[in-house]
């Protein structure tokens, strides 16, 4: 589904990302972990063609991401708050995104209605603009907006940060459901090793822009990750 080849991104002489080969098959829930500056957001930005690769390319469903825009209809993302339009209400925002993705109001209403408990009554019908919501609630709106229009690939950067525990647990349920039952490819990055191991079938560790680990998740994965990040490798 997503094929990364010889991809690198450099600012001046400093290379911030260098991935020679990475394949993410359809329907996989894929987790990206790494310390600050490891290149997680850079990789996602490249996937969304928000920055230009220095070398190499990413193919999304056989579409060259930096050459064609044909990947956009089946790919959606929520990277940060800058994906929200502050002066709209959540409903208006959902409808706007829906419209861009060819969904009418009823479609959007139906989809959003499934996330009533995820919203915890704090998003819909509040008569508030997105800019007036708290950070956590903004994030909830942004994540759900990324699910509109039946995308085949969903990219979420740090989806668990800023959310309260209840919502984190519900979000895990949503992501698992998407990947397992609906065959959606979900790409998640996180600093929280526990969440990632819970949700993702596969975890890739980035360090200084390079892939240092590529693990299929099992019971030992969390231990291995903790060992890696505390600097003690298990032998």
């Amino acid at each position, binding site marked *: 589904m997503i094929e990364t080849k010889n991809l690198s991104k450099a600012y001046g002489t400093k290379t911030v990302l260098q991935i020679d080969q990475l394949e993410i098959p359809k329907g996989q829930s894929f987790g990206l972990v790494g310390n600050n500056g490891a290149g997680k957001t850079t990789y996602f930005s490249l996937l969304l063609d928000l920055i230009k690769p220095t070398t190499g390319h990413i193919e999304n469903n056989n579409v060259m991401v930096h050459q064609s825009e044909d990947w956009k209809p089946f790919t959606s993302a929520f990277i940060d708050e*800058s994906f929200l*339009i502050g002066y709209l209400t959540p409903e208006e925002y959902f409808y706007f995104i829906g419209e861009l993705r060819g969904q009418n109001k009823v479609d959007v209403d139906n989809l959003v209605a499934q996330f009533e408990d995820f919203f915890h009554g704090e998003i819909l019908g509040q008569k508030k603009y997105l800019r007036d919501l708290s950070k956590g609630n903004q994030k909830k709106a942004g994540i759900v907006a990324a699910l509109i229009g039946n995308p085949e690939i969903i990219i979420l950067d740090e989806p668990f940060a800023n959310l309260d525990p209840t919502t984190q647990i519900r979000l895990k349920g949503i992501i698992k459901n998407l990947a397992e039952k609906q065959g959606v490819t979900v790409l998640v990055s996180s600093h929280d090793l526990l969440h990632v191991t819970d949700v993702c079938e596969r975890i890739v560790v980035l360090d200084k822009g390079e892939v240092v680990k590529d693990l299929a998740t099992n019971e030992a994965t969390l231990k291995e990750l903790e060992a890696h990040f505390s600097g003690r490798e298990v032998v």
Partner: protein
Amino acid sequence: MTLKHFLNLEWKQFFRSASFGKSIALNILMIFFALYFIVSFLIMGIALYPGLKKAFPEEDPFVIVNGFLFFYILVDMAMRFFLQKLPVMSVKPLLTLPVKRNKVVHYVLRKSAMSFFNILPLFAFVPFSIMLIINGYPSSSVLIWLLAIIVVTLIINFLNFLIESISSETELSFLPIIVLIGGLFALNHFNVISFSELVSQGFMAIYSNPIFVLVPVLILAITYMANFKQLKSKLFLDSSLKSKVTVVNASSMEWTRRFGDIAPFMQLDLKLIWRNKRTKSSVWMLLLGLLYGLFFYPQPTYANMPWFFAFIGIFVTGIFLINFGQFIPAWDSGYYKMLMSQNIKYEQYLKSKWTLMTMSVVILFVLSIPYVYFGWKILLAHFAAAIYNVGVNTHVILYGGSFNRKKIDLNQRAAFNYQGTGAVQWIIGIPLMLLPLAIFGITYAISSFEIGCVVLTVLGTTGIVLHDKLMTFITKKYLDSKYKMIDAFSQD
């Protein structure tokens, strides 16, 4: 010590910003303007005394100048309101650091006293004072008088910020200043209270009795303190963090549906304009623009200058176009990344902006039809100007937008936020207005008024005919600078 840090911070902010290259070009232009004004003021200051002496041999030039000071103050106030802004400083990061709030506020206010607008008058008044002393006026009295002038300039400086903060809190925009200046002028003009007389007498009193200089100094202290209090009250985090929550008044705007596939963007743009203070004020600007013709047309001097009509026509029908258009696509800078990752056609996005601007031109033209009262030529010129605006200026401004690298933060409502306002805003409008003026003026000079209108109309029509081609070209420009724009818009 702290002052040094503040200056250091601002220096870095200026040189490290993404729009640095662009601001250099603009700054050079601003410097030219500044030099022009300095030289004009200097010449005026030197020539004023002998000139007045020659024109009115009977009267004392010093008394004449004092008689005009009231009008000078009014003009100065009006100019400042539109051109001078309180120095910008990002204060939020400083609030939690051990820097006294008072210090920050004092710094901002003192910096404003160093503004070009306060220094410029010196170029006229200092040589004028020297001329007075040369011509035998007592030097100590003249110096006190000069001091009073400087103090009054500073009073205007601080008064202006008070007026600006009042206007920015209400949604009336420039209404307060118009009411204030118009009211003072009217009261004086119709002899209800003769302010020009009062001001003149005041300065004469200071001239003859230096102790009276304390009055303006006292007023200065009061305006400074008022500003100080006002700014300080805004300097608390919660006043910017805990923004007041407005209850939404949502409407589905079904009428935009008839515009087809650009409807979602049209709705978004209309909400953008109506729900943000910054953009809302450009709606109020429409009123000012519409009334702009009233400054000129009633005067017989301009009635005989038909070449000027087209310029006013461009302004009257194009004020929204210029005001809104020059910040495309920066209006959407806050969520530009999202738009770019969405399944949108750039062309539709731009087309929506174009439709909005075109609609505004048509509406403003219709509203300006009453100007026909001042002559049918005006209507004709406005029509030609409107066509030119739709055909040429809309495309030019959209094209110009592809060079836009300056973010506008719509969400930020804290104090000190005057992004994208001030003198620079008006400079960008110059080519849009001067070019048609030049075209019209030249054709008017070598042939006739009617031909001038025809030329503008033909140019405009050409633009409209080529609209699709031009949009394709402009869209390509935007696509080419996509990465640069995303990068610039995600910087603070």
